[in-house]
C-alpha cells in the first residue's frame, strides 16, 4: 500500500465572535477606510432584509429569502470583485448584488413578481438570481470559459448554498472549470440549513470545502461570520483565478438566523434556542466591535448609518411600489429577439382578453 494522494482542508478565522483578532490580520483589515464600506454594506443589507420581510407580511411583496446572519459572505466576496468580473448569484445573494450595483428597487421588483427586476441598470453582465439550485455553477463555469477564450482578465464568481453542494450540477461544473483551468470562484454559503434539512443530513463529508478535492482544485473553509476571513479568502481566490491559476472553492461557514424564506416557518423543525445561540456569532456586531476597538466607530456614526440605510431602503420601496405593473404584452416581449409570426395572434389575444384580476404585488 502506497500513499498516492494527500489532501488537507484549512479553516481560517481572523476575528473571533467578540471582534478580537485571533492572529495577525491582513493589511486591508488594519485600515478602517477599507472596512467601513463593508460594514455599511452589511448594515444596509440587514435593513433591506427587515423591510422586505415586512413588505411580504403586509402583502406588498412575494416570497422573499433573507440573508440574515450571512451578510459578511456576500459583502466580503463582492468587495473582492472587480467591476469587470461577473456575479452568478443564487436567490440569497442580494448582499453581493447590492455591492455590485443592483439597486434595491430592482431587487424588490424581482421579489414582487416583475421580471424587470432582473434587468439591472448597473452590472449589465451579472447573471440574474438563480432559483433552480446549483444550476448557476454551470453557467459560471461557462462564463469563465468565455473570458478565458477571449483572454479577458475577468473572473466569474458564483454563490450557492450548503444544500446546493449535493446537486450534480455543482460537481460537474467544478470539474469542467478545473479541467479548463477557468477563472472561476465558487463560494458556498454554508448556513447549515437547506430549508429543514440540516447540514449533517446533507452530506457525510466533514466539510463542504473538501468537495473541491473531487475536482482537483483548492478548497478552503472560512468563518463566514468573519468578514475579514471571507474577504481575504475571496481576494486570494479571485486573484488566483484572474492570473490563470484556475478555480477555487470557498466554504463560508455561517448560520441562517431567519426562516428559509417568508414562506417557511423554521420553528417547525429547529430549536429556537439553538438559533439564539448562533446570534452570538453573527457578523455585523462582530465587525462593529472590531471597528470600535480601532476607534473607527461610535454610537453617533452608528445612528447616522442606520438613518441613512433606512432612508435608502424607504426610497427604494417607494420606487418599487410606484412602478406600474407590466402590460400583458410583456409576456411576449423578449421571449425571442423577434417574436415569431406564429405568436402574433396569441399576443393580440392576450392584449385583448387581459382579465382584470391579478397584477398586484407579490
Amino acid at each position, binding site marked *: 500500500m502506497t500513499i498516492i494522494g494527500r489532501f488537507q482542508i484549512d479553516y481560517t478565522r481572523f476575528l473571533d465572535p467578540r471582534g478580537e483578532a485571533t492572529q495577525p490580520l491582513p493589511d486591508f483589515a488594519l485600515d478602517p477606510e477599507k472596512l467601513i464600506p463593508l460594514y455599511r454594506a452589511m448594515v444596509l443589507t440587514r435593513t433591506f432584509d427587515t423591510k422586505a420581510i415586512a413588505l411580504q407580511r403586509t402583502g406588498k411583496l412575494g416570497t422573499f429569502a433573507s440573508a440574515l446572519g450571512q451578510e459578511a459572505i456576500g459583502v466580503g466576496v463582492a468587495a473582492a470583485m472587480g467591476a469587470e468580473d461577473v456575479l452568478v448569484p443564487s436567490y440569497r445573494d442580494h448582499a453581493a448584488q447590492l455591492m455590485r450595483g443592483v439597486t434595491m428597487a430592482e431587487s424588490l421588483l424581482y421579489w414582487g413578481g416583475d421580471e424587470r427586476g432582473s434587468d439591472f441598470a448597473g452590472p449589465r453582465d451579472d447573471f440574474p438570481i438563480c432559483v433552480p*439550485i446549483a444550476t448557476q455553477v454551470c453557467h459560471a463555469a461557462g462564463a469563465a470559459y468565455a473570458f478565458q477564450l477571449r483572454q479577458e482578465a475577468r473572473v466569474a464568481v458564483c454563490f450557492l448554498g450548503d444544500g446546493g453542494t449535493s446537486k*450534480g450540477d455543482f460537481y460537474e461544473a467544478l470539474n469542467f472549470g478545473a479541467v479548463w483551468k477557468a477563472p472561476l470562484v465558487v463560494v458556498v454559503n454554508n448556513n447549515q440549513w437547506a430549508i429543514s434539512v440540516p447540514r449533517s443530513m446533507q452530506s457525510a463529508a466533514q466539510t463542504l470545502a473538501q468537495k473541491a478535492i473531487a475536482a482537483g482544485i483548492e478548497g478552503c473553509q472560512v468563518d463566514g461570520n468573519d468578514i475579514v476571513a471571507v474577504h481575504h479568502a475571496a481576494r486570494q481566490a479571485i486573484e488566483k483565478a484572474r492570473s490563470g491559476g484556475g478555480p477555487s472553492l470557498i466554504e463560508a461557514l455561517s448560520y441562517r438566523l431567519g426562516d428559509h424564506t417568508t414562506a417557511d416557518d423554521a420553528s*417547525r423543525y429547529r430549536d429556537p434556542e439553538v438559533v439564539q445561540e448562533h446570534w452570538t456569532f453573527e457578523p455585523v456586531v462582530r465587525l462593529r466591535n472590531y471597528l470600535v476597538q480601532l476607534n473607527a466607530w461610535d454610537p453617533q456614526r452608528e445612528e447616522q448609518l442606520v438613518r441613512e440605510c433606512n432612508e435608502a431602503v424607504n426610497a427604494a420601496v417607494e420606487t418599487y411600489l410606484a412602478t406600474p405593473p407590466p402590460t400583458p404584452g410583456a409576456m411576449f416581449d423578449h421571449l425571442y429577439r423577434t417574436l415569431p409570426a406564429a405568436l402574433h395572434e396569441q399576443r393580440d389575444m392576450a392584449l385583448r382578453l387581459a*382579465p382584470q384580476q391579478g397584477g398586484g404585488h407579490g
Partner: protein
Amino acid sequence: MAELNLIEAINHALAHELARDPAVVLLGEDIGINGGVFRATAGLQQRFGAARIVDTPLAETAIAGTAIGMAAMGLKPVAEIQFSGFIYPTFDHVINHASRLRHRTRGRLSCPLVLRSPCGAGIHAPEHHSESPEALFAHVPGLRVVIPSSPSRAYGLLLAAIRDPDPVIFLEPTRLYRLFKQEVADDGEALPLDVCFTLRSGSDVTLVSWGAMVHETQTAADTLAQQGIMAEVIDVATLKPLDMGTILESVGRTGRCVIVHEAARTGGFGAEIAANLAEEGLYTLLAPVQRVTGYDTVVPLARLEYQYLPSVERIVAAVHKTLEGA
C-alpha cells in the same frame, strides 16, 4: 367522513398506503419533520419513522434515480419533487429508466414508482414554481400520467397510483391544494387510472380539461348554463393512458369541443385530444375544436400570471365561437 382539502386528501392517501403496505416509502426534500413545503407529508415521519419517510439531500436526479433502484428491488417509493420547476432533472431517469425497466428486462424487474410533484401557476410563487409539464411526460411510453382536480379524486387516484405496478407521474395543482374542501372517506378505495370523469352532463358542447383548469371550466359551465348553453364537463384526470372513448362519445352527442389547459398551447396535451377528434371524431364535429390554453410563453412572474392563465371569460368566449360555427 372528513372534510378535506386536496393536500389533506393527499396526506390521507399516503398515510393509508404507508399503513397498509410496508413496501411503501416516501422520499424527497423536506418531507420529514417539516412535513413537506406544502404539508403533504405532515405528521408522516413521526408516525412511520425516518427510514420510511426519507428526507433526502438536495438532488432531484438522485431522488428519481435512487427511487428507481428501490422500486426495482421491491419497494414502492413515492418520491416528491418539491416544486414543478425542479422536476426536469428527473427526466433522464424517468424516461431512460423508470418508463422502460420492465420492458428492457422483459418483466424481470419493474418500477412501481410514483413521482409526485406540484404543478401549475396561480399562487404567486417565485420563478420556476409554476410549470405544467404534463404533456412532456404524456409523450413517454411506459408511463402513466395523472392529475387530480378535487380532494376525493386526489385521494382515490393517488391510492391507485401507489398500487399500480408501473411508474406513475402524479401532478398536483398547487392552486387547488387549499382552494376548497370536500367530503372524502378515508376508506382505501382507489379510483381507476384509465378513465375520464364526466363531472357534468350537457348536450350543447363538451368541455375537456384537467388539473386546476377544471375549476375554471366548471365555473364557465355555470356561466354558460345561465345563458342556456348546456356544457358537458369532462375531467381527463389520467392523461396517459388516455380514455378517448369517453370524450369521443360526448363530442359525438354535442358536436362541439373546447379543450382547456394551463400549459403552453403548442404541443400541450390538448393537441393530442384535438388530434384524436380530427381522426376519429371528424364526422361528428359541428364546429372547429377550440383550445383554450396558456400562451406559448414562459409563465410570467406573479404580477402577470393571471394574464397568462386561461380565464373563465376565455373559456366562455371559445364556447360561443364553437356555437357560431353551427
